[in-house]
């Protein structure tokens, strides 16, 4: 999976009950590009995303919306 560039959202959820060390709510997305799949924290945290939307990858952990079909 790339550390930068764009990827497509495959699945998305908003976590409402968090494990220790995290502060809910926050959004996680499974994103895919030509190099593979990864789980990313969405920033801003409550952006409305849907499968098929495009995101920009930031480092190994974060994705930020590029296009959103739901907004």
């Amino acid at each position, binding site marked *: *999976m790339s550390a930068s560039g764009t990827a497509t959202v*495959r*699945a*998305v*959820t*908003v*976590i*409402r*009950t*968090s*494990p*220790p*060390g*995290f502060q809910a709510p*926050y959004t*996680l997305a*499974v994103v895919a590009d030509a190099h*593979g*799949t*990864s*789980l*990313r*924290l969405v920033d801003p945290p409550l952006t409305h995303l*849907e*499968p*098929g939307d495009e995101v920009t990858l930031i480092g190994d*952990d974060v994705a930020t919306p590029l296009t959103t079909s739901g907004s």
Partner: protein
Amino acid sequence: MVSIGMESEGGRDLVIAGSAMTRFGRHPEAGPVELAVQAAREAIDSAGLSPADVDTLYLGTFLGQSLHQQGVVASIVARRLGLGPVPTSVVEGACASGGIALRHGVLSCRSGSAETALCVGVEHLTGFSTEAVTGGLAEAFELGGDRGSGLTFPGFFGLVASEHQARYGTDREEMAAVTVKNRAHAEGSPIAMFDAPVSVEQVVSSRPIADPLCLYDCSPISDGAAAVVVTTRANAAGARERPVRILACEQASGATAISQVADLTTFEATTAAAGRAFAAAGVAPEELDVVELHDCFSIAEIVDCEDLGLLPRGEAAAAIADGATSFGGSQAVVNPSGGLLSRGHPVGATGLAQINELVRQLRGVAHRQVEGAELALAHNLGGTGATATVTVLAR
């Protein structure tokens, strides 16, 4: 529905001679050891055996050590039961720990290293905060991988639901119909944690947990234990009720991180274990009369039905909502006990509680009886599909 004439598991005629479970729910009066001993003692007694007849003990638990800080639980339970110096082992496969305990018992008896195996599953979670249990369950995610992103199990299955919706157009109300069905099955059950019916509207308007899943889409944090005695048919001659034949007990592993998964709407461990179990038992999915499967979340039952071959891929949600897997439906009845969503989900105990329900179904004494049930399947899933067991039983 099917003529049972195939060879039993591994050539030895293995049976479940006895089974028992505690009620699942809140048990502030007892710890995990006490619950395990209670279920085990009742299972041995129902098998018409004594503790001295048990040759080995396998105990499935996931969070016993990390939350209760107690090791060697299997040996403690063996001592309390008076089993003597038999070999004991704790087995762990997250939510599939109970199913794995059963498989180890079957393998021991199949190999001839044991004549009688006691398989126990237990978990005690309600004495801890939701945050602590959520964090504990997240131990089934790889350290430094998905766990570092703040993923929870409701979150993981929320992602599964999201991809299933995108890939197959699965409707939110159809998803909720799984909970509605399973609550209806559990109505009035003496062993269910939740035995009151709910409506689709109540499910979709319950508190959001991890989008699109709401509270009633999720199995509850629970305490409880279940136990099963596996032995040869000859040793089961004194069983209080008819022994149930074990036709197959298979296990497989799968992805442990989302980066390994090309398709979140199927679990490789389930399809592999099911393929092996159907082959070993010599039966096909359409021959089954009754199924207890791993509905830890409403979406999980939909995926499980598709992975087990009970319903066509992408069509399970609509079929379940139409009543295909309810009593009187066109397919095997799925989760007549009410499943994890109603019975509760004390993680390590769940796989053996499924077996306990199917034993009762095949004996014709279940709370919600599938009439004429002859062939049954149990499916127990662990983690992100990291492990799964599939067991086929016959009357």
